[in-house]
């Protein structure tokens, strides 16, 4: 039985839009920027109600990052919004110098991350953004799991000081975290278990929850932990869980290199070497197609998580 139910699906980017609009009301320092993607980023409500705090930059992402950094100097809290690809790889050097190294309070908010943007295909399906952003010293990196958590994370960023990368996506997705507390840097244990630790984030948390139900039927007790914050990583939560279970599965809509899997592998290798199986895109580009078909084709389905969990358990000494 799936331990979480949902009554509604919504896109995580709408959670961002809702959170941003909320922030607009409560914090007059919050400003928003977009690079010709107001609608895709669901920033319309903010734009409508706070036009003087909304900056349309045009198709010029590098300039957007610079402008955001400049705005932050006078204590504005800029939220930039474009696709995840153009939020990271397109402007890495600008983020690095003008935001991260300069310690600016800029919130880089990125939609259409991962395979699940679907039909636009590989040029847009960035699977390396988390890896890039987590390498930047001082950068907070958050990958919320659903609409509710994306909204909560967005609102939390209003108070949080420092450069942040917030990653979300395009497709409608089950809403199952509503009401749960969201704390930056604090992993969220969704399901207790003892045989294997499943660490997931973003859309993959739901996949993990579905996988857990299948595993439970097979008599395997899986712990499911939502690592919504990749950086700073909740090392304690990871170590405590694997201490108990003895093995781990990581699940992410990201390249196998550079993301959550590597973060967990680093922690365990340094503090408690344990078998890890990684459910991620296996070092290939994506392609056009419907989101769920893509997750299946690229090995990110619940069944892949189940397989990985069984394998990880077998590998325990």
């Amino acid at each position, binding site marked *: 039985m799936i331990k979480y139910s949902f009554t509604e699906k919504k896109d995580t980017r709408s959670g961002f839009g809702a959170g941003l609009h909320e922030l607009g009301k409560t914090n007059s320092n919050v400003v928003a920027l977009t690079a*010709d993607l107001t609608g895709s980023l669901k920033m319309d409500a903010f734009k409508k109600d706070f036009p003087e705090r909304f900056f349309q930059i045009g*198709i010029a992402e*590098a300039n957007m990052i610079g402008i955001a950094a400049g705005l932050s100097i006078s204590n504005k809290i800029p939220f930039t919004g474009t696709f995840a690809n153009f939020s990271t790889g397109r402007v890495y050097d600008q983020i690095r110098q003008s935001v991260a190294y300069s310690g600016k309070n800029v919130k880089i908010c990125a939609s259409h991350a991962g395979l699940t943007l679907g*039909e636009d295909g590989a*040029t847009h399906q960035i699977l390396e953004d988390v890896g890039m952003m987590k390498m930047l010293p001082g950068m907070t990196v958050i990958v919320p799991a659903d609409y509710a958590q994306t909204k909560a994370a967005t609102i939390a960023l209003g108070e949080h000081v420092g450069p942040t990368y917030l990653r979300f996506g395009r497709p409608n997705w089950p809403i199952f975290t509503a009401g749960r507390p969201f704390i930056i840097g604090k992993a969220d244990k969704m399901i207790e278990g003892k045989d294997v630790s499943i660490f997931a984030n973003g859309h993959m948390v739901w996949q993990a929850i579905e996988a857990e139900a299948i595993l439970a039927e097979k008599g395997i007790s899986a712990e499911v932990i939502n690592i919504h914050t990749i950086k700073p990583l909740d090392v304690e939560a990871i170590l405590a869980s694997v201490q108990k279970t003895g093995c781990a599965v990581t699940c992410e809509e990201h390249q196998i290199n550079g993301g959550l899997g590597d973060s967990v592998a680093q922690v365990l290798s340094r503090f408690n070497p344990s078998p890890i199986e990684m459910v991620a895109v296996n070092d290939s580009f994506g*392609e056009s*197609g419907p989101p769920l078909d*893509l997750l299946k084709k690229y090995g990110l389905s619940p069944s892949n998580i189940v397989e990985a969990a069984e394998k990880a358990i077998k590998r325990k000494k």
Partner: protein
Amino acid sequence: MRMAFRFLLNLKEIRDDSKYPPLFLLQHPKIPPIFAGKIYLAHTMAKEYDLIQLKKIASQVRRDIVRMVHACQSGHPGGSLGCTEFFVALYFTQMKHDPKFNMDGKGEDLFFLSNGHISPVWYSVLARAGYFEVSELATFRKLGSRLQGHPATHEHLPGIRIASGSLGQGLSVALGAAQAKKLDKDDRFVYVLMGDGEQQEGQVWEAAMYAAHNKMDNVIATIDYNGQQIDGPVDKILSLLDLKAKWESFGWIVQEFEGNDMQAVIDGLEKAKSLAGKGKPVMNLMKSAMGFGVDFMVGTHKWHGAAPNDEELAKALAQLELTLADY
């Protein structure tokens, strides 16, 4: 002779040039009557279509575009429809090109699409020009297709030499290809199309500067000057002001022409060739209307990236004459 047919027919059976005598081709029942006249090899086909024929091809391409976008319920009809005359004119009257497709394009004119989101028009024209079966248009944006949402080489679709979709990169790539042609003493042209919203990307101006300084006079660039981008009219989002003055100040020869008048496009492209080779790169500012050809789509950014529903599709198709067979 046979290659030109392949453009239009896409018969698997005639892929191998040597297998069938010309007679077979000329008598083939699927050759539409509008092509019963002169047929030339791709390499020499320039201007051998008359205006009526070209317009008929354009009408069919527009049908392909709306049908493709409708079928997968995603993609970018607006810019595609607006650039249909350009693509048809370029591939059917201007470029020396070989649908058998050699990646290196030696001795051929090359085309790069920088605003990759208007892939539907390119795919349709490539198919109608014989690069691959028109039936493959049905796979657009579907899982496992070679017709990716944005053009890609990754799946080896003939006709595509580089991926695009992330805006701003195409002119640079075209310059590299043009540099290679100069190195190889290959005197064919390199064409590239960009969007007007895309002009907001800084990389475009890096490339602009390089092209002038290095006298890239074998490059013929075109901007789809449709005045629209995703969030609205370009003038409202981030105005390009006097775009002609901008490109001239960057050292280019600039001309303007109407993009939805087939004759004007052909004349403009002919003119561009005559302006080339004089030590400066050539820029065409092509005034087009986003969504041209479908009354409810024309002139608005709303159809930049939206797919028609069944009813809208029917309405659109009713306005677009069926000239060749639908795929």
